[in-house]
């Protein structure tokens, strides 16, 4: 069992290349096999498979008939796909901007040496421990127009109160945003708070000595210093938005009609029940492209050649 890498040079190997490739440091390579397999088979292999078959006319089963960009042309002509994309864009912008802003503001408020900080953090973060399915179902009940919040406030005397967003074609996407913010803003807050805490107290002292107003210190000094945390949060939140699926299934199931459809749902539906695999694969390739838009700039920033590492 005991493997050595030190005395590798001692044994005169028949083929140094093969020896280095397989025998040397063997246990570590065995330990890393699942990682290598995951990267090669799943992340590279499966992704390439999907991209390749998105150029075929596969229907219920994958076939090899190459049809060029036909699936993509159909995809971009499909009303449901366009509604999905538009929904995701609107949802994504709102969800990203609001969760980052509210998350940061809450973190700033919690950084004011308040009492009950732990209690508040527990409260803000518990929804994140719940699944998106649970989140969707709770908000479905609260926003239920016949027995939920709308009726409650009307019965309490606010006769004109209207909150029928989950059954309203134009508003349903905002209902999704509300539930989503409840689910994940606490997560952003916790990350931002960690970022705020990582800033040296000396910076604050220096800013105070210079008479810089607090809000100005936050905006011009603290925020730029938190760049790393903010970018990482953006990448995590952003790539989660592209995947948006569970919450929609639980809260609206894409309805009313197709008013709250999203790309991930389009893909899964066509993949497993629509009998139109080519469409599903083309859709998922577009999703991949959307993630790369986030990922590549981040990768360039993150892995710019620094010293070492």
């Amino acid at each position: 069992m005991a493997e050595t890498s030190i005395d590798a040079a001692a044994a005169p190997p028949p083929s140094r290349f093969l020896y280095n490739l397989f025998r040397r440091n063997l246990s570590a390579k065995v330990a890393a096999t699942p990682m290598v397999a995951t990267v090669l088979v799943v992340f590279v292999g499966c992704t390439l498979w999907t991209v390749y078959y998105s150029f075929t006319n596969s229907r219920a089963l994958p076939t090899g008939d190459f049809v060029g960009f036909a699936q993509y042309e159909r995809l971009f002509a499909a009303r449901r796909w366009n509604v999905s994309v538009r929904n995701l864009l609107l949802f994504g912008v709102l969800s990203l901007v609001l969760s980052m802003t509210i998350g940061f503001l809450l973190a700033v408020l919690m950084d004011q040496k308040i009492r009950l900080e732990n209690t508040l953090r527990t409260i803000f973060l518990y929804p994140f421990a719940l699944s998106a399915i649970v989140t969707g179902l709770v908000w479905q009940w609260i926003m239920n127009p016949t027995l939920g919040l709308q009726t409650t406030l009307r019965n309490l005397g606010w006769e004109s109160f209207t909150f029928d967003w989950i059954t309203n074609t134009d508003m349903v996407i905002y209902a999704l945003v509300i539930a989503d913010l409840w689910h994940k803003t606490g997560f952003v807050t916790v990350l931002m708070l960690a970022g705020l805490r990582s800033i040296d107290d000396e910076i604050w002292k220096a800013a105070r000595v210079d008479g810089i107003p607090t809000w100005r210190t936050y905006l011009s000094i603290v925020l730029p210093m938190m760049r790393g945390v903010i970018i990482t949060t953006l990448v995590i939140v952003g790539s989660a938005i592209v995947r948006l699926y569970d919450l929609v299934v639980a809260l609206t199931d894409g309805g009313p009609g197709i008013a709250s459809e999203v790309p991930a749902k389009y893909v899964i539906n066509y993949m497993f029940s629509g009998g139109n695999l080519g469409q599903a694969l083309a859709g998922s390739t577009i999703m991949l492209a959307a993630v790369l838009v986030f990922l590549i700039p981040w990768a360039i920033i993150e892995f710019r050649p620094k010293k070492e590492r």
Partner: protein
Amino acid sequence: MTALPATAPSAVVPSGPRPKRVAASRIVLYGILLVAALYYLLPLYVMVTTSLKGLPEIRLGNIFAPPLEVTFEPWVKAWTSACTGLTCKGLSPGFWNSVKITIPSTVLSVLIAAVNGYALVNWRFRGSEFFFTALIFGSFIPYQVMVYPLVLVTASLGIFGTLQAVILIHTIFGMPILTLLFRNYFASLPPELFKAARVDGAGFWRIFFQIMLPMSLPILAVAIILQVTGIWNDFLFGVIFAGTQNYPMTVQLNNIVNSTQGVREYNVNMAATILTGLVPLAVYFVSGRLFVRGIAAGAVKG
């Protein structure tokens, strides 16, 4: 820090009469935090009270009213006899399916990631860093991109539609974040520890089991918390890979609530929803800081 005049040392323990000017902005501060806390707590309150009401009381149309007559019937029904579309056995089969999925997936993925993280730090080989970077990047690929080929892979292995398939899938997709976690942790340990063991002649596995693993208990706890909550809350993989018989709790819950036949029993729905959330909530409340550390470690260091 906004509210404090320069003279006051951080006002953690207030004593003496309350200074009035400070109070005003403090009140605003606490006011905002209170409103935010209410927004977060309200759904939990509504869930609990709704689940304890009878249907006639729910039809009165006040989701905020506490139950006049507390009944546990909805809870019993949600657990034992609510209909999930095919059968009417409640959520209990889903609960046990989720247990059967979560435990092996967690053990397997955490073990693989621990060994892998250790190899990446202490036994680097040509290409190890490359594959690690690729693993982290791969974790951002939407699952929808890889799901169909994985269906084919599991089908050709003969495990599609079984518990093994879901466990395999969870192990695969848990690997990036867990490996990152363990790699960062092992990298933070003093290298002398490893070198001393090497000098004493211990090999790969021996150093892992006798030195590294016992030292990694804190990060082990973080990883387990991360996986248990993540896998328990999964919906997509369960619905695709598990097969109807093995649907996890989240899938069954969604089927109960969103099934279109029959009278909508909102109290049963809410009881079922709480039941499904109970495991991750328990993990969250018990582990507290470790949970926070888990998500922060995954995000901030990445």
